[in-house]
């Protein structure tokens, strides 16, 4: 633990956003030649900490030492020049440029003042050989899979003299083989003395490749642990804190649910290229969890049910009636609602007020000519701001000014106000702070007690276990398992996801 051996050391880092204290005096130490997992639930502060390291955010307190020298990265470019490179889950390179150009972007070798393409291509080819990538570097980046793009991003980062490589959920969209080859690369980089920070949700992967583990919870440091000596239950306990006991309580309740009338029945519903035909039954007042990795088909299933995409096969029966949705409007009229996975892109109407964001679904249900009077709009918005505890001073504030968790609550309020009988929640707790996280889970439980049927897709297994009456596991865009009763356990879900 001596400071002299640390390549990157963060001490007492604080970061505040309006209304959220995102990091409360967090320490983090990375030694050269180690792979160090950074773990925590959504909203624990992982991303914020990484953004502080990489200069996206400026810290509000604490020190960052690189090789013992204090640094103040003001931008990602700054951090990169200092030797801190980051590879994100969404590869942030330019898909329309060639692979080689992406690797040398912004630092192109020149000849007579012009870009020396020959050298670029030559060097890129050699560089990628180190990563077992034998690809045509003159093709556009977009012609390769996400996995390959990620390796290219890593190659670029390391080639720019990285001392510290940060991998932010790099495996979320990779298949098992791709993950293995990524791990091989990580190990070889580690042997070269590079310190690697590895952020992931997959605990198996943590144990497969990491030396040390730092856990954050609720914006605070829980501790740093040796991967070899920390057991998995201890790890989960540290991540979830006191909530674990409460979660187990709920677990036993869910086993005794009785079979109510079916609200939604899918028979062989599918869409070629998007989702293999799926059977699914959701009873009145039941919570069905959808488990699976990113890209496993969870989001696609939600979109098919809600009519965002049209199903190509199978039949769908909703409240006793066979339905063929051709638009989301029809789904809304029937009493469905969907909180989409990508809240920013598909959910919020950024510049519009909280009030408008809340009343919109109900307005759409009523039709455009039957305008909800302003007074009633205010009443609805005020009611939900109070009921589900949306932290805002004013319902006229643009929703984009709220924190992620509060935005999510507004989207939930939007659907609750439309009085639905089936609500689809796709990753309802992604990227929101821990307080809001707990509140949304609580809300989900209340809703199903009131007889609302819910379909909740989540990559947080503990969460699924906590509220689901039934868990449907998807892999590679097909349903692979359906778990009920006492089978609903993180381990069983994980096994179903992983089973070949």
């Amino acid at each position, binding site marked *: 633990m001596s400071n002299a051996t640390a390549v990157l050391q963060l001490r007492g880092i604080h970061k505040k956003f309006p209304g959220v204290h995102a990091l409360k005096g967090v320490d983090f130490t990375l030694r050269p030649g180690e792979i160090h997992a950074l773990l925590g639930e959504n909203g624990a502060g992982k991303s914020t900490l990484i953004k502080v390291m990489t200069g996206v955010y400026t810290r509000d307190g604490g020190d960052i030492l690189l090789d013992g020298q204090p640094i103040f990265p003001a931008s990602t470019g700054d951090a990169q020049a200092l030797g801190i490179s980051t590879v994100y889950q969404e590869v942030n390179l330019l898909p329309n440029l060639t692979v080689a150009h992406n690797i040398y972007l912004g630092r192109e070798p020149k000849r007579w003042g012009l870009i020396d393409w020959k050298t670029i291509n030559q060097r890129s080819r050699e560089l990628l050989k180190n990563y077992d990538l034998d690809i045509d570097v003159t093709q556009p980046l977009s012609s390769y899979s996400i996995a390959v793009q990620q390796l290219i991003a890593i190659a670029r980062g390391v080639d720019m003299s990285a001392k510290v490589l940060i991998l932010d959920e790099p495996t979320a969209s990779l298949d098992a083989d791709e993950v293995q080859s990524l791990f091989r690369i990580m190990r070889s980089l580690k042997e070269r003395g590079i310190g690697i920070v590895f952020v992931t949700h997959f605990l198996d992967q943590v144990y497969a490749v990491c030396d040390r583990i730092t856990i954050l919870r609720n914006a605070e440091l829980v501790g740093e642990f040796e991967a070899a000596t920390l057991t998995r239950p201890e790890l989960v306990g540290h991540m979830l804190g006191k909530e674990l006991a409460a979660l187990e309580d709920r677990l036993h309740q869910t086993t005794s649910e009785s079979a109510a009338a079916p609200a939604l029945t899918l028979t062989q519903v599918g869409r070629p290229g998007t989702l293999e035909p799926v059977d699914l039954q959701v009873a009145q007042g039941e919570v069905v969890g959808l488990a699976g990795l990113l890209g496993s088909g969870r989001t696609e299933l939600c979109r098919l049910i809600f009519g965002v995409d049209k199903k190509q096969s199978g039949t769908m029966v909703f409240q006793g009636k066979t339905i063929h949705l051709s638009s989301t*409007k029809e789904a*809304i009229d029937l009493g469905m609602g969907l909180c989409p996975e990508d809240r920013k*892109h*598909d959910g919020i*109407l950024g510049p519009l007020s909280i009030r*408008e964001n809340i009343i*919109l679904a109900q307005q759409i249900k009523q*039709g*455009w000519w039957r305008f909800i009077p302003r007074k009633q709009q205010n009443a609805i918005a005020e009611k939900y701001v109070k009921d589900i505890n949306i932290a805002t001073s004013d319902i006229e504030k643009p929703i984009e000014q709220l924190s992620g968790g509060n935005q999510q609550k507004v989207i939930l309020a939007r659907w609750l106000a439309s009085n639905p009988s089936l609500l689809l929640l796709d990753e309802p707790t992604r990227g929101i702070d821990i307080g809001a996280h707990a509140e949304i889970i609580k809300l989900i439980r209340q809703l199903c007690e009131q007889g609302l049927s819910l379909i909740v897709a989540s990559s947080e297994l503990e969460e699924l276990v906590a509220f689901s009456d039934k868990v449907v596991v998807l892999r590679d865009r097909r349903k692979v398992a359906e778990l009920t009763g006492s089978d609903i356990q993180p381990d069983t879900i994980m096994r179903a996801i992983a089973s070949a």
Partner: protein
Amino acid sequence: MNAFLSNPQLRRYLWPVAGLLLLLLINLIISPEFFNLTFKDGRFYGSLIDVLNRAAPIALLAIGMTLVIATGGVDLSVGSVMAIAGAVSAYLIVSGVDSLTVIIAGGLAAGLVGGMINGLLVGYMNIQPIVATLILMVAGRGVAQLINEGQIVTFQHEAFSFLGTGYFLGLPFPIILVIITFVLVQLLMRRTALGLYVEAVGANASASRYLGINARAIKLSVYCLAGLCAALAGMIAAADIKGSDANNAGLWLELDAILAVVIGGASLMGGRFSLVLSIIGALIIQTLTVTIIMSGIPPKFNLLIKASAIILVLLMQSPRFQQQLSSLMLWRKRHG
């Protein structure tokens, strides 16, 4: 005042209104009689009335343009649509049609067809608005020239001329037309949920789709509305000169209309809109033109002064510039 400034809805009015007041003040200094209103023979006369009257075409275009811009689009064709509508009315009059209703319906129909073409290209064929409307901007003037057979068509039609030169309730009739259009569109947008839908489509097209808002239909209708507004403006312009000049009617006015909306503080990315602010924007542009003429500056400076004034107005509205300005003030307070 503080409560006023902290309300984001009201705050948007601050700079456009301040800009307009500033311009009026300059006019007051240049010529004290600027604000004089005289009432003679049942009509109001004065510089202010002139400004309002001359601003009518831009204001009408700005009403339509506001909605188009709110959906994240833009309509470059409105100037050409003005020319087409003027040409169609002139054609009907010289071919012997006497019914005012038929003449106006003909002009409006031309605008509606133009708007529909734009709306279909943008909404249903997903062509970039700037390209889609550029087609009609170029082709439209050609169509107008064809209708006029390459001539400037003049006409005599008492009732139709009233659109441009008549007086109603003591005010020039174009002003009345702007008021009527404004009230109708405002009611349509704010007494139904249409305005909210328009803003939703502009704020986040993808989220609107998840909400079941028919973005295509919304886009089609705002372009149609912009076409109707342009047709009305075109008929006012034709009635004013008792003739249809396909080459010059509404020339470059689409740019003034876009400018009016932008001065009104709307984002070209779409989202929030305010018809009132856009009309204030149109008034600022027209007042500026009058100010330059009244101040006795040689006309050759007109365009440059107009451009500089507009840059100033836009700068004042930019949050970043406001921030820099206030930190500069603070710095001078500390060091001066």
